Structure formats: C-alpha cells, structure tokens
C-alpha cells in the first residue's frame, strides 16, 4: 500500500453535490431535512396563528388551579381541593401501577404459555395455541370490556352480603370480600414492636440466601446435595411466626367489614384495576408466549439432546439449558411488549380506572378546555415512561447478551 502514491486529491466542485455518489446522498438528506423542518414550521406556525386568531394562548397555568373532581384510586393523598397538577400525578401513578402489575403477570403468563405450547402433550399444546390465537386476534379494548362486564355481572354486589341469610359470603375465614366493585383484603396494622418482626423477616431472607449459598458450595466442593426447598420455607416462616407470638402479635390485621353501602377497612383493589390488569396481562401474555416460543425454537435441538444425554430431567433441561439461551432472543421483543402494556393502559377509561389519560387527558382536559397543552403533556409523560422502560430493559439485555471474549 505504501508503495502506491496517494491519489491526486480532487478539489471540491459544486456540481459534485449531485454528480458524485460520495456527496449525492448527503445532498438529498439535507434537502429532506430542510423539507421536514419547513413542514413542521408551517404546521406549528399555522397552529400558533390560528390559536391567536381564536384568542387562545398556550399556557400551563391551569396545572396550578383547583381540580374540583375526585379520583377513586389515590396512591398519594388527594381530594377535590388539590390542583390539576396533583390530579395528573395521581393519574401518572395509577398508570405506573397497572403497567407494572401488567408487565409482571404478562411475563409469567407468557413464559408458561410459550413453554407449554411446545409441550409434547397434544392437549396442552392445542389449548395453549387456542389461548394465543384467541387473545392475540381480538382487540384489547374488547377484552377489557368483556372481562369488566363479566366481573360486574358475575361477582355479587356488596348488598348480597347483607342480611341474616346473605346470598354471598366472604372468603378465607371472613377476611376477603370479592364484590363487583372490587376485592377487599385485610390490611396489616403496624403496632409497637412490629419493626422487630420485620427485622426478623429480613434476617430470615438473608439467612435463606446464605443457606442456599452454603448448599451450593457443598454441592460443588463435596458433591453433597442438600435439600433447599423445605428448609428455605421453614426459615422464611418459622422465625417470623415465633417473633409475632413472643412479642404479643404486634402486627395485627384489619378486616374489611360491610358498613353502610360498601365494605370499609382493609385494602381495596378496585374492580376496574383488576379488569384492566387482567385484560392487559392476558392479552399481552399471548404475544409474549409467541416470543418465548420463538426464543426456545431458536435454541438448537442439539442443546436439548446433549442435556438429555447428560441425564437431566426435562424440567431442568428447560430451566438450566434452553431458557437461559432463549432469553437472548426473547428479551428484545419483550421490551416492545412492555411498552405496549404501558401504552394500552391508556384504555383504562373504558372501565373507569383513572389513569393518566383519565385525569390529565380526560377530566382535566375537559374541565379546563386546555386540549393542546394537556395532550402535549400527556405525550411527554408517556414518552418518558416508555423511554425509561426501554432504557432499563436494554441494560438488562446487555447483561444477558452473549459475552464475547
């Protein structure tokens, strides 16, 4: 190479922008960029001009004004005297709650269904195929509405629990009430000394980790297989129950009870949250099942056969050999399914769940009439949530990637 003289450096001429392939694509990219900017500027200018003509202005002052409406699920304290800004925050948290819960359950449903779709059992395989096709091919809004309307019609109204001979009864020693308005669970009451019980609980979790590490070390160093499941379970429960008894039950439970029109006390999980959560999980679960199936099929059959030749049982082959390798294929499409759950959660208003779209993009928008401001803010919020999910999942993806050395 060094023996060759450098080619003569051609001086730049203007015509080269079109005729020279090295510059031509740059030229067209530049023209396209200018066109895009001009179009955006035209649309923006038009909007501003028309707003001014109609005597409207873009202002976010309304976020500080009193909201005046109530919200049924409040993760942070809120009443109708608070501002529209706080109402939007409540909505944002509600969106995050349902998105978070949805992602977890959709993943569980999806992985189970995806693995079972490849089961050698004909019936299981066909049932899972049926599930995937049914749920994947009907719009999620329809599922939300179907599940919600089944729930409000099938579950008993609180009224059914009333009277001497109620037609409905609570579950689990009168501690859980399932109604068509939601599920009422007992709430822990933290009395004095409960910190100690929590401390014991955390200590036993650490204990379980240490025990498992010890068990693995024994296995690797001395080839002794120590059972871990039952000791772990015992470690988890026995110390806490002992502490609870010794300290005189510092953590007590507040049970929901029928008072007036509704159950009061305890923790309420709204029916709308359950319907939305369930519908989103089961719908997205069907997509994730397909991703999982694709991931498993992508792992070469030789891996399974080799593992089987080593004498591993089918469950262990799946957990120890196939799934870890399949994860590399599964995670990237999984990210977009998580984003779908978050975005689809904006259908919440169909069942009256007050998410971000219901508060900021719904009542606030209508009461203040600030449509453009609200929608822009709404887009910003969803964008931030989605980008954060992608960011976190990409970090996870990078740790799972094949490490090349």
């Amino acid at each position: 190479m060094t023996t060759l003289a450098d080619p003569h450096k051609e001086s730049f001429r203007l015509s080269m922008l079109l005729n020279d392939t090295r510059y031509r694509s740059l030229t067209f990219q530049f023209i396209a960029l200018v066109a895009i900017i001009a179009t955006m500027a035209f649309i923006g200018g038009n909007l501003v001009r028309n707003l001014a003509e109609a005597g409207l202005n873009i202002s976010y002052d309304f976020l500080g004004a009193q909201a005046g409406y109530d919200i049924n699920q409040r993760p942070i304290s809120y009443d109708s005297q608070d501002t529209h800004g706080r109402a939007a925050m409540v909505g944002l948290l509600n969106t995050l709650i349902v998105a978070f819960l949805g992602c977890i359950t959709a993943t569980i449903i999806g992985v189970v269904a995806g693995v079972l779709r490849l089961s050698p059992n004909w019936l299981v395989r066909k049932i899972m195929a049926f599930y995937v096709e049914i749920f994947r091919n009907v719009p999620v809004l329809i599922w939300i509405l179907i599940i919600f309307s089944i729930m409000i019609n099938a579950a008993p109204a609180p009224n059914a629990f009333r009277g001497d001979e109620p037609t409905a009864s609570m579950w689990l020693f009168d501690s859980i009430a399932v109604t068509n308005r939601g599920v009422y669970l007992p709430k822990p009451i933290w009395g004095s000394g409960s910190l100690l019980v929590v401390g014991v609980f955390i200590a036993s979790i650490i204990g379980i980790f240490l025990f498992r590490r010890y068990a693995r070390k024994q296995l690797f160093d001395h080839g002794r297989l120590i059972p871990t499941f039952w000791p772990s379970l015992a470690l988890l429960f026995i110390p806490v129950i002992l502490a609870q008894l010794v300290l005189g039950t510092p953590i007590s439970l507040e049970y929901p009870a029928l008072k007036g029109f509704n159950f009061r006390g305890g923790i309420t999980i709204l029916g709308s949250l359950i319907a939305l959560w369930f519908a989103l999980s089961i719908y997205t679960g069907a997509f994730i099942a397909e991703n999982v199936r694709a991931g498993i099929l992508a792992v070469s059959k030789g891996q399974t056969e080799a593992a089987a030749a080593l004498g591993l049982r089918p469950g262990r082959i799946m957990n120890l050999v196939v799934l870890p390798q399949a994860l590399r294929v599964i995670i990237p499409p999984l990210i977009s399914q998580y984003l779908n759950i978050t975005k689809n959660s904006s259908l919440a208003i169909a069942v009256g769940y007050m998410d971000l779209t219901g508060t900021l993009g719904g009542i606030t928008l209508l009461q203040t009439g600030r449509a453009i401001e609200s929608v822009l803010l709404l887009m910003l919020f969803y964008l931030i949530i989605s980008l954060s999910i992608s960011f976190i999942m990409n970090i996870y993806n990078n740790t799972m990637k094949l490490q090349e050395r």
Partner: protein
Amino acid sequence: MKKSVFLGALTVAGIIAGGASAATLDEVKARGKLNCGVTTGVPGFAEPDASGVWQGFDVAVCRAVAAAVLGDGNAVEFVPTTGKTRFTALASGEIDLLARNTTWTFSRDVDLKFEFIGVNYYDGQGFMVPKELGVASAKDLDGATVCIQTGTTTELNLADFFRANSISYEPVPIETGAEAVQQYIAGACDVYTTDASALAAQRANFEDPSAHVLLPEIISKEPLGPLVRHGDNEWADISRWTLNALIAAEELGVTSVNLEELSAGTENPEINRLLGTEGELGSMLGLDAGWAKAALGVAGNYGEIFEQNIGAATPIGLARGLNAQWTDGGLIYSPPFR
C-alpha cells in the same frame, strides 16, 4: 399513547379548520344541510327511532334551525357526540350547532369560546337509587359508590355536594350514559347521578322503572341550551331567534294547528312580525320572511315539542315545572319580536 396522538391530531386539525370558517350561514346554505351535534342517545332528548330517524327535544331545535335557514326540517345531518367529543366537534367546525343537553357555564361560554344561544331546558343534577336501599335523601349517601358520566359538570357538582355535607363517596367515572346505566343496574354502583331530566329519561327505559327512585335533592343549576362557536354573530343570532321564535309562539298561542291560519295575517302585530306578514325581521337575519313559520312548521311551538318528546304523556313523563312559560310561573321567556 395512540389515543392521545389521535386526540392531539384531532385538536390541531380542529383548530386549523376552526380558523378558516367564518360565515356559517353561507356554508350551511351552500351545503344544503345543517350539521347538528346531538347526544349518542338519550330517550326523549335525542335518539333515533325504530326507522332510524332522529327524534327528541334537542333534535327539534336542530330541525327548527334547519327549517328556518333552509326551509326544510329534514335537511339536518345529525352528528352523535359524547360528553368528551362535543366541544372539539363544535370548535373544529364539524358541526354548526350543538344541541346536546349542554350546561351553560361561565367557563364554557368565555374560556372555551362558545356562544350559548339560550336555554331550552332548565335542569338540575339529581340522584337515582334503587328503592330497596331505602335511601330518602342524598345526605344519607355517606360512603356510597356513585356512577358519574365523566367530562361533564356533574362530577364537579358531585364533589362539591359531598364536601359541603362532609360525607364521603367513591366515584366511578364512566364515558357514556348507557354504560353508566349498565353498571348501575348490575349493582356496581349504588347511585347514578346526572341531570334529573336524563335520569327520568333513562329510568323510563329500565325493565322495572318503579324499582328506582329519584332523590328529592337537586344539587345544581343546569341550564341546558344549544350553542354555537364564538365569532360568527349572524349565525348565533339566527340560532338564538329560532329558539326564541319557538318559545314566543307558545306564549302567543301559535301552534302547529293554527299556524297556516295565523300566517295569513292577524290582529296581533307581534304574531304578524313573528310569522313575517309584517316588518322585516327575516331579512334582518339574512333569511326569508317566512323563516319562523318554517321553523314552527316542523313540530310546532316550544310547548308542543316539550309535550311530544318529554312531557307528562310520554314514557319520560317530565312535568313542565321550571320549563313552563313565564306567564305560567316558569322560567321560559323570550325577548320581544320587535
């Protein structure tokens, strides 16, 4: 996100279109049809009948305006709108007139840039509960679950009412009246609240209307009226005076029965001015002299429209109450035709 982008696009498109339209009257005439926004279906107020023809109290206002402008009460394109979409539809110019049980409030008039052309029904927010609950007053509703139609003034009134009486409630926001009724019937909420007229209308459609009671409390003022966009005063005048013509006709005793007879000329100069045999009222509006006669020709005067759609003889069974003529102790009152 999909939905919000769509809404955003709709708003932007709406505002672009909104700026462009100025002379609504010319547009309606050129189109040969009036685009009128109504509800998605409230019995008695606006609902398509068995043959798909829109009928109702609000529909009658649309038809009257169409008749006054185009001479034909059927030259109306009815656009069903929800509580959420109605204002965007009007602001964007998709509809020329919104007659959809809309409460006249300060912020809608001033901040949202609309022009209420009058009140065709004086309403108030009420509560409906199943009779078996044994509730006699709205103040007994402490802790109740309440179904509300979202995006309306009702949810603000509700919050105010419960706060003022320091009692608590669980709101269940719902998009349309039909869904709210579904949940109420299933017992997913104890109470359904909206304008008392709509409660009566929806109760009429229940399997057993007598199993549900309306509580005596009316917790708000809800003057319902048709509205148009700000900025086109001629069009607002036409709509306003068409409504006034319906009201004045009842006061003056002009009915669908004697309309032809009276429009030949009478001793009463106000009737003559109204029906166009005297004076220039029609041309002042930019319409024919017979505009009010055409409007009255569709379904008669205000009282007739009321009785026909929501009056005591209909399944809705609303009494005139506040909506009687001022001469009968009500609030319905038209400025003079002079």
